[in-house]
């Protein structure tokens, strides 16, 4: 019989307070406390990190190759995106106004609406 080599943990980390958690890699550890002790030094020795998650791999429910079929979509959903409303640009021009596009709207952060 071969030796037990613990269990697999998936390691996630945040680089900055505003960043989303990113998957880093996996490691073998006997339990989650040990997994946490190993995580930073194994995968983030040289980069900033503000938070870490370790998740036992058996607790992750992913997609089987077959189930990945559920991710397929028809390319007929431009009503969900700005692409379906591009004609407004010309319309607004007629009213001598500019369209509020994504770039414009996202520039309003911090209440600074010029």
């Amino acid at each position: 019989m071969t030796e037990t080599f613990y269990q697999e943990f998936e390691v996630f980390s945040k680089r900055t307070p505003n960043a989303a958690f990113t998957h880093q890699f996996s490691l073998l550890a006997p339990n989650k406390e040990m997994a946490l002790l190993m995580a930073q030094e194994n995968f983030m020795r040289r980069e900033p990190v503000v938070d870490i998650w370790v998740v036992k791999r058996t607790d992750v429910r992913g997609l089987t190759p077959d189930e990945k079929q559920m991710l397929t979509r028809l390319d007929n959903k431009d009503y969900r995106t700005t692409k379906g409303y591009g004609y407004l640009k010309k319309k607004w021009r007629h009213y001598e106004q500019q369209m509020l596009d994504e770039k414009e709207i996202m520039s309003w952060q911090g209440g600074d609406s010029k």
Partner: protein
Amino acid sequence: MYDATHLFEPEVMTEEEKLARFTERIENGEKIEADDWMPAFYRDTLIKLISMHGISEIMGALPEKEWVPKAPSLRRKLGIMAKVQDEMGHGQLLLRVVEDLMKPYEKTRGDLMDDLFTGRLKFHNVFHMPTRTWADAGTIGWLVDGAAIITQTNMLGASYGPYARALQRICAEEVFHAQHGESIIMALAEGTPEQKAMIQESLDEWWESLLMFFGPATKETTGTSKQDITIAYKIRTKTNEELRQNFFTKYVPRIQSLGLVIPDPTLRFDEESGQWIYAQPDWSEFKKIIQGGGPRSKERLALRRTSYQNNAWVREALAETMA
């Protein structure tokens, strides 16, 4: 999540269709992931390649760690400690990739260690060699790692996604290793006559091993070579000889610029063929070394085996804490 898979007829594909689909994905430049279907020869080639790569990192930590306590300043002690740590870290990444590939065979890290001890799992020729002086630590950092960077960057686009991602991490750290090695070599090359002699002697000692590192040009040289399959399935792009030629192009001018003499009087760049002409290393010696007959093969394996066995109680104890 509700498991709806039973509602659908699984797509029934013959083995031939699966292989055709797989080959098509490879040709389209798609990445194969751990739980995707793959033909046994692809899986087995990856297991063989990556387990050798991974275990070489782990065995490679041993010759370098010999010089960690001896490093000649506080800063050098820190630098080489960080480097040996990275080697073990690279071993960790690669072994994790292999462990996932070995799952269908119900094999684990323990089996890899057993394969190493019984000689079924080989490691790179360079890590069978003695490191006799501090200059050897510099040569390993600069030139052995330089050779490793050339072979590893060649596989950054590997068709197997987990390997490609591990290599991304590894190559990013290799940049530090290369500069760490250069820094040691530069100090010796600019130092006292004794220091200069030390580095020249080290180059003389390591040159043949460096050429061997890339492997034989064709399988006729040593009887085995996996390079055809690895190229056909886009695990790597260049042949052993192309990589060796790259190494000459990148490193020969740099070595010579430091006033060092390469111990091969026949070495020259042939403008006509665009190739470096060089004296072949002794390939029968190469074969002997990787089969465990190198100058330090037995000692390094014994060291690995002793520490592995002495610590077995720790792994057994912590296995009890698994929850």
